[in-house]
């Protein structure tokens, strides 16, 4: 158990509203990731962080931003939610031997 929690676990929101998802780790891993999982697309990387205030884009970053002000917290923000962002979002952390451990996920529905 890598000690990763995500909140909220479920959220329904309306198109055009901002949404922030939180990922929290109880350990001190430098690398953290946000993925989305959709049928037919599998898991795709949105953004990642390689340290406090150090973040970069993944392959599906449009419409998303991230922030990491503390090692333990990695936030994903949907600036103006759209129906195409309805998905299951997973946070992950990477250990020193490059293994990634995933959180329980957040199921987001944009109506």
């Amino acid at each position, binding site marked *: 158990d890598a000690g990763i929690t995500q909140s909220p676990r479920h959220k329904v929101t309306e198109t055009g509203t901002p949404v922030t998802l939180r990922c929290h780790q109880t350990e001190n891993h430098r*690398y953290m*990731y946000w993925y989305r999982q959709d049928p*037919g697309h*599998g*898991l*795709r*990387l949105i953004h*990642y962080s*390689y340290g406090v205030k150090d973040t*970069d884009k*993944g392959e599906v970053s449009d419409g998303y931003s991230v922030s990491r002000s503390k090692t333990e917290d990695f936030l994903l923000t949907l600036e103006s939610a759209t129906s195409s962002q309805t998905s299951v979002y*997973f946070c992950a952390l*990477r250990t020193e*031997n*490059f*293994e*990634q*451990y*995933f*959180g*329980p*996920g957040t199921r987001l529905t944009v109506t």
Partner: protein
Amino acid sequence: EDQVTQSPEALRLQEGESSSLNCSYTVSGLRGLFWYRQDPGKGPEFLFTLYSAGEEKEKERLKATLTKKESFLHITAPKPEDSATYLCAVQARFGGSGNTGKLIFGQGTTLQVKP
């Protein structure tokens, strides 16, 4: 382009009927190949990392093997509790993926084991 393909998409087995799942990959230098198990409504659960061709790892009824082009997840005498989606992912040593630690996932194989 780095790519991962898993087959079959779905597999139904009777309890005790052994089989294998396949993960074919192309990557610009392999840093590691990872197997995960995912149950409905949950996050992927880490199973194994394989780093080089010829390497094997075992855990209970599961055994993962690696060649230069593919990996197999062998399931021996499966039980209903082994029912899940099994995901394969690779991390490249070079290029953008090598710097980010990004995992490239296959679509997964959904395994159903009937009693």
